[in-house]
């Protein structure tokens, strides 16, 4: 591996000051499962690597019914995968991190790292956006927060300033009668990047859709909120026919490209199939809550 200076700041303020001083030539190391691969392949050539694992308080994964879920920057995907509260209240996110790489990788890779990588095929982004998650940033000029949806600005691009790092994610507590699902389509079940991913969070009371989030992964440079599909369902009585119409609308919302994993046409077809199935799965979930 190309040589770099290795630093272990003890506080967020120290980490932010280091990032500022390096002016974009430093990389933040949390799980490292993406960063080290990128450095080995010379896709990134940082002069400094800033390991944030010594900063206290960032490994916290908590849930309460008022505040919702809090995922510290150091919380691993495996911790979310094996968390009973995550599986119960954030089933789509829990599924996304279970379908992710291998156990060895998930023991290191962080959820926040997956968000900051902002890969078009990122598994965690679609469920986080469907659940209206917020990302909390820390920088020299203070803290700010924004929806994950606004944080991811392009393929591999985020709203992070050069001196900023993500301290945590928060995800609102689900309303009653909410069901969630994430479906990932690939050539195999594990050790796979998504060809298409669909996350659905839906709230249905007495047959009426009160709220819905449908987010598509790997069919655009960033995750895409299927706004037309959502509008089709929101504030309307749910029926099999309506679900089918929403799935068709999602196909129009997608902006897929052709690449090594699939053609654009195939991806668009799969958006239709997976959106229907994900809505159906999420609807089953609402009945058990």
């Amino acid at each position, binding site marked *: 591996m190309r040589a770099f200076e290795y630093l272990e700041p003890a506080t967020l303020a120290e980490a932010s000051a280091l990032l500022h001083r390096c002016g974009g030539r430093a990389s933040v190391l949390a799980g*490292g499962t993406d960063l080290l*691969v990128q450095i080995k392949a010379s896709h990134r050539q940082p002069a400094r690597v800033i390991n944030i694992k010594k900063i206290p308080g960032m490994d916290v994964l908590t849930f309460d019914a008022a505040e919702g879920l809090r995922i510290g920057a150091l919380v691993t995907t*495996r911790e979310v995968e094996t968390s009973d509260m995550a599986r119960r209240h954030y089933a789509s996110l829990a599924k996304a991190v279970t379908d992710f790489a291998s156990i*060895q990788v998930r023991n*290191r890779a962080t959820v926040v790292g997956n968000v900051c990588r902002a890969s078009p095929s990122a598994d965690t982004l679609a469920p986080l956006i469907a659940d209206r998650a917020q990302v909390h940033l820390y920088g020299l000029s203070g803290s700010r927060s924004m929806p994950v949806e606004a944080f991811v600005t392009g393929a591999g691009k985020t709203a992070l300033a050069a001196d900023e790092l993500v301290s945590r994610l928060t995800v609102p507590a689900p309303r009653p009668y909410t069901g969630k699902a994430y479906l990932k389509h690939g050539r195999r079940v594990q050790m796979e990047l998504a060809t298409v991913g669909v996350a659905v969070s839906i709230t249905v009371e007495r047959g009426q859709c009160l709220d819905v989030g449908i987010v598509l992964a790997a069919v655009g440079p960033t995750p895409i909120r299927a706004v037309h599909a959502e509008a089709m369902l929101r504030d309307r009585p749910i029926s099999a026919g309506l679900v089918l119409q929403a799935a068709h609308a999602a196909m129009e919302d997608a902006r897929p490209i052709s690449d090594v994993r699939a053609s654009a046409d195939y991806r668009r077809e799969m958006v239709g199939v997976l959106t229907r199935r994900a809505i159906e799965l999420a609807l089953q979930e609402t009945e058990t809550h």
Partner: protein
Amino acid sequence: MRQFIALTLNGEPRELAVEPHSTLLDALRHDAGLTGTKKGCDVGECGSCTVLMDGKPTNACLVLAPEAHGCTLVTIEGIQPDPDTVHPVQDQFMRCGAAQCGFCTPGFVVMAKALLDENPQPTRDEIRFAIAGNICRCTGYTKIIEAIEQTAETLRHAPEATR
């Protein structure tokens, strides 16, 4: 410039002088002289460098050497209960013919031990799920899965102390 890290390596306290930009895998193989942990892909795809870091199966190729400071590490060299006895997983790998070229074997054995430590009686699906991050290009996995199932079977009848 090299820096010193102190860790518990296979039950023994060790100090290693490592390059901060080297991986734990290279530190184990070159600085600690433990070459049982293999370098396959070096990007976290193949699992042949699987080690137990604070009890958790981890790809040593995706960890920076200085990150191992203060941790408890177990490699394939450290899983035998004593120098004359192989671990039950190793024993069953031999009995079932679960190794051909052997390059992936240390990673599979460590991963299987991690699985059985956490879940002593896994189903076949749970075994397949657990070893998804380990690649074997010789055996086709059937005998590896059988070896892990057989280990679980022998552990079921074994006294606690030998696990």
